[in-house]
């Protein structure tokens, strides 16, 4: 009876599971890894859409020989190295790595396998020792089984409760900082990188479309130039779509973390778990969508 009561008491102390935190952190880490893979780099965009490189398209185009008086000069001109672009890429990478490290640690610490001590071996050994050393104790199988359950609970549950408290504190304390960092990441992707992509479109119009359209004399030729521009724009639209998905992913990670930070404190854990479950599904869907876009 006393054993049952003790087990019940210990169970009450650690009623909240870290499973939601674990699954959410796991999805967030894999989402961030995919985000890192999917987004174009500043250096790559700069190099690909630099005027010198775009002008080379004119050299290889159908009008290259006849219309382009500077043929060959563009090819000879080297693309300048954009140091701010390289710095922007490494800073973006630092943000991604910091967020990934944070969620990876949340995931590892909330893993249910981390605290799973089984007292079976210990109790069986002690029972054997008892039989030889103090047979008067008369430990029956029922008693041994009760001791196993009690020891499992006594050794695991306080540690689980302490871990839950530690996780909850960490999530709450860092929620605001995470919001700022994700906001910065969002700014980088949605404003700066999107700006580079829009600039890439403007560059194509300035350095490829304008001269080609000027050289094209017949409606058929102009249509051909328009079609090539359309194809170029399709590539840029795919990059913009990737950025859109990445922003949705970051928003969902931010929302889920905030739910964990506030839901645990407000004792509305069941509702929070349901919200987190929906966020995990959303993150996994967005990751699948990103993988599809990259392929």
């Amino acid at each position, binding site marked *: 009876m006393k054993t049952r009561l003790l087990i019940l008491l210990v169970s009450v102390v650690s009623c909240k599971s870290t499973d939601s935190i674990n699954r959410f952190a796991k999805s967030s880490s894999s989402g961030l890894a995919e985000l890192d893979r999917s987004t174009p780099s*500043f250096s790559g965009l*700069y190099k690909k*859409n630099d*005027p010198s490189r775009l002008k080379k398209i004119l050299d290889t185009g159908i009008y290259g020989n006849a219309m382009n008086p500077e043929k060959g000069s563009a090819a000879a001109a080297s693309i*300048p190295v*954009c140091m*701010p*672009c390289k*710095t*922007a890429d490494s*800073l*973006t990478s*630092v*943000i991604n790595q*910091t967020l990934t*490290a*944070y969620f*990876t*640690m*949340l995931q*590892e*610490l909330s893993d249910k396998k*981390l*605290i799973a*001590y089984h*007292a079976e*071996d*210990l109790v*069986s*050994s002690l029972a*054997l*020792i008892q039989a*030889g050393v103090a047979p008067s104790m008369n430990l029956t199988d029922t008693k041994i089984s009760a001791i196993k359950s009690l020891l499992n609970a006594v050794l695991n549950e306080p540690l689980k409760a302490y*871990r839950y408290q*530690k996780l909850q504190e*960490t999530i709450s*304390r*860092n929620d605001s*900082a*995470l919001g*700022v*960092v994700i906001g*910065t990441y969002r*700014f*980088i992707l949605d*404003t*700066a*990188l999107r*700006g*580079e992509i829009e*600039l890439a479109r*403007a*560059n194509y*119009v*300035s*350095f490829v*479309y*304008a001269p080609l*359209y*000027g050289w094209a004399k017949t409606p058929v030729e102009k249509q051909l130039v328009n079609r090539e521009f359309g194809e170029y724009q399709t590539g840029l639209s795919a990059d913009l779509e990737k950025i859109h998905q990445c922003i949705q992913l970051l928003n969902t990670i931010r929302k889920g973390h905030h739910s964990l930070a506030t839901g645990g404190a407000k004792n509305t854990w069941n509702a929070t778990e349901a919200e987190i479950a929906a966020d995990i599904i959303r993150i996994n869907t967005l990751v699948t969508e990103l993988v599809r876009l990259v392929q």
Partner: protein
Amino acid sequence: MSETLNAQQLIRLAQSLTRMQSAITDYEIRQYDALSASQKGKIELALTELARAAGILYAYSVQLAFEDAEGQLKQLKSAADDMSRFLKTTKKIQRVLDLVSSVAGIAAAVISYDLNGVVSGIDEVVQILANP
């Protein structure tokens, strides 16, 4: 009015340069046949400068945004380090419990004269101690 631009202002400046580039390009397309080769060359030079300046400004805005969030990034890194330390401690506790079980196993094997049990129990303890 602040003396230095912030990330948002830098973006707006870059966007203005791109709009200027697009406006000049539109003019060039409309007046293509009327422009001389020299004029086209000058336009191309101006467009190149505008395009490169805008590209660099977008990249610079990342540095400014990063600087604004540096404190929070350090906080998250410190939280990850703190969790890593806690994880190591938890793993150590698990090892101690495993060690207690193994030592009890050896004691049981000694009492019941089980030589194989003693040897395998010692191997287990050595293995636990060898893994830091």
